[in-house]
């Protein structure tokens, strides 16, 4: 991915267009993904019904995040002071490079022989595994989905459901190849294979790496949400615990979690509560029998402050990464997760990636939307996602104006403001409509490749209108 950044301009857009075409035509893939999401919709609706007022609860969740993000200058230092008072160590990283360097140094200092890791999208963002492996450190992803993706040599397909596109037969084959296990068709047995494989690895690992879902300012705790128990084990058994988090994850009060934790679970996976919601404040205390000797937290900026500096889109930092907007997005469901080519897929990824990695290379994501607003409707923290896609389109037009688009509009203004020219143009157009398909204009060619042109009417609308008026007299 890092290497790709240096590739030709527009590579990201070309890749998107190419991959989208392939995936949209793969009906097997589409049906499979839709089916996997089917159960999610049912359980999500059932859990939402248990809220006495889901819409108002969304207000409370968005207020909690709004008031924290807009007071980050005050809450971030407060969080850090409290976290350090609890015995944790904080490291600040301006960008991905710096974060990788910090973590590599920590791993080296710990003389790590084995590293176990629980799911952490921020680590995908900074390509941590590749950096660790390059320096000769083996790292095991312990989350089942991430483990499967690691064995497949692929990034996550969906930032909450990393391997939702993979069939059980493929997983069985994969485990057979890497772990030497006999083939099976049962998700249960496949899960148990991973469970058995991983247990000794937790015991042997000397460094555990996790992400963080919330940083609680008033108590200096970090909150981690997971279903499998792998993050709990990762933060319990190794001698050193390293956690990596974006600076935007701060909330002010511990109480805020009473709203945010259940809403994250309901919106994201259709659960009342995710199985384990754990708050950590530092390493093992005196009097506690186990837990790590050291706890480190790496706080990452990596262009988050650039989003913060844009009041219009600042609320995209409220995102709690529940994944709900992906699950309802017609684009995601058609083009699939890999087409985006980003760490964060789907609508929210299309909003923030241009900020994280450059508007000129990633603006095409803003165009890959029908602006239906399904994402904004489900977002538990009420981020105005689809309008931000529009904002990005506008900003892109300002910074990198599209000359052809501009030229086209100028022509249109000239024609549309002169009735005689409009009529003449219309007449020519009616007679040449059939030839459009053969014009070497890329936009037209792409549009018409999968669409049939209607037959042109013989008379213009205005002619017909005049005729109708005469007839009715």
């Amino acid at each position, binding site marked *: 991915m890092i290497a790709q950044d240096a590739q030709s301009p527009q590579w990201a857009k070309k890749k998107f267009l190419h991959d989208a075409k392939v995936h949209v035509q793969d009906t097997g893939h589409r049906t499979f993904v839709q089916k996997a999401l089917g159960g999610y919709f049912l359980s999500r609706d059932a859990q939402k019904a248990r809220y006495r007022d889901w819409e108002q609860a969304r207000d409370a969740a968005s*207020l909690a995040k709004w008031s924290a993000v807009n007071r980050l200058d005050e809450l971030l230092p407060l969080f850090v002071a409290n976290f350090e008072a609890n015995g944790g160590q904080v490291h600040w990283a301006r960008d991905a490079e710096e974060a990788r360097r910090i973590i590599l140094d920590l791993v080296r200092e710990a003389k790590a022989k084995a590293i176990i890791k629980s799911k952490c999208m921020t680590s995908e963002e900074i390509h941590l595994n590749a950096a660790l492996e390059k320096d000769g450190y083996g790292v095991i992803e312990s989350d089942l989905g991430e483990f499967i993706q690691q064995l497949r040599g692929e990034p996550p397909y969906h930032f909450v459901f990393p391997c939702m596109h993979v069939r059980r037969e493929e997983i069985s084959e994969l485990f057979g190849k890497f772990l030497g296990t006999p083939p099976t068709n049962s998700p249960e047995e496949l899960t148990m294979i991973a469970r058995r494989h991983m247990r000794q690895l937790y015991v042997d690992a000397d460094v555990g790496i996790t992400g963080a879902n919330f940083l609680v300012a008033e108590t200096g705790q970090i909150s981690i949400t997971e279903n499998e128990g792998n993050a709990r084990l990762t933060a319990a058994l190794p001698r050193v615990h390293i956690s990596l988090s974006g600076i935007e994850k701060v909330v002010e009060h511990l109480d805020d979690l009473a709203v945010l934790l*259940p809403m994250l679970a309901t919106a994201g996976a259709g659960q009342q509560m995710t199985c384990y919601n754990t708050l950590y404040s530092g390493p093992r205390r005196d009097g506690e029998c186990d837990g790590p000797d050291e706890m480190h937290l790496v706080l990452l900026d990596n262009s988050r402050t650039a989003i913060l500096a844009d009041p219009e889109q600042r609320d995209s930092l409220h995102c709690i990464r529940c994944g709900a907007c992906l699950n309802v997005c017609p684009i995601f469901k058609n083009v699939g997760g890999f087409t985006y080519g980003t760490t964060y897929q789907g609508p929210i990824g299309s909003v923030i990636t241009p900020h994280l990695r450059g508007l000129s290379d990633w603006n095409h994501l803003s165009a890959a939307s029908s602006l239906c607003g399904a994402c904004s409707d489900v977002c538990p923290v009420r981020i105005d996602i689809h309008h931000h896609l529009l904002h990005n389109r506008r900003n892109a037009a300002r910074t990198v104006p599209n000359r052809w688009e501009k030229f086209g509009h100028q022509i249109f203004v000239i024609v549309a403001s002169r009735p005689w020219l409009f009529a003449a143009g219309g007449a020519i157009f009616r007679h040449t409509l059939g030839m459009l398909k053969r014009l070497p204009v890329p936009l037209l060619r792409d549009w018409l490749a999968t669409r049939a042109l209607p037959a042109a009417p013989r008379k213009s609308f205005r002619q017909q209108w005049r005729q109708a008026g005469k007839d009715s007299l």
Partner: protein
Amino acid sequence: MKAAVDTIAAGGMSARDTILLRVREALRLPAPMPHFKSLVPSGGSDIPSPHAGGSSSAGHAGLAILPLDVARPWLPDGGDTPESQLAILANNLEKLRAQMHRVADLSAAADFVLSLARTRDWHRVAYHGHALVEPLLAGVPCATYRVDGADAFDKSALEHCDAGITACDAIVAQTGSILVSSATSGGRALSILPHVHIVVATLDQIVSTLGDALHAAKHRGAGRMPSMLSFITGPSRTGDIERILVLGAHGPKELILILVG
């Protein structure tokens, strides 16, 4: 703006100072409030922008209304009476596929653990020192391992145990969650590593909502929280393979709550 900050940063500013400076600069322009559907804070509709008046703490007082206080009546119900809380809890645990077993006293609880150990042929059970936990191990017909005993904690020994028995901080009716902590539940690993997790608790440990549990934890911790607090909601699970639910991903496959009283 960013360019200006980075020029200063190039002059040897620490990463911490650079990021905090970027944050301060970024927040100079206030952001609009989210588009609330219906939230009208009881203090009136004029919650000041956090940065009104220049200093960011100026907005603090205006935001004294915590979302939780406002949100409580909108979240799922946790019950107002002990009876309704118990009913909601039982329902939640059943849906979560956790087991709940009610007993009259600790000796009945010990009988229950004994029968579990027998029928499942357990070889070794782990526990920690606690007034509710220790009596349950009195008669178990197998080896036991105390995680907080005189010897140093041994993770391999714990890994070989069939079950772990712990106390807890609180039980949340609203979500069917059991709050454990490194202080009251035998550290971090005991409640997650063994294949079966048995929690023993008294009826009066049931609280209505997550908010109540967090509130109590904050006061108990009084400025110094246990290094780990964890809400356990059902046995460990995953849906990573074709979104099909499987219990027992990495944590316990079974969660058994023994309610005494």
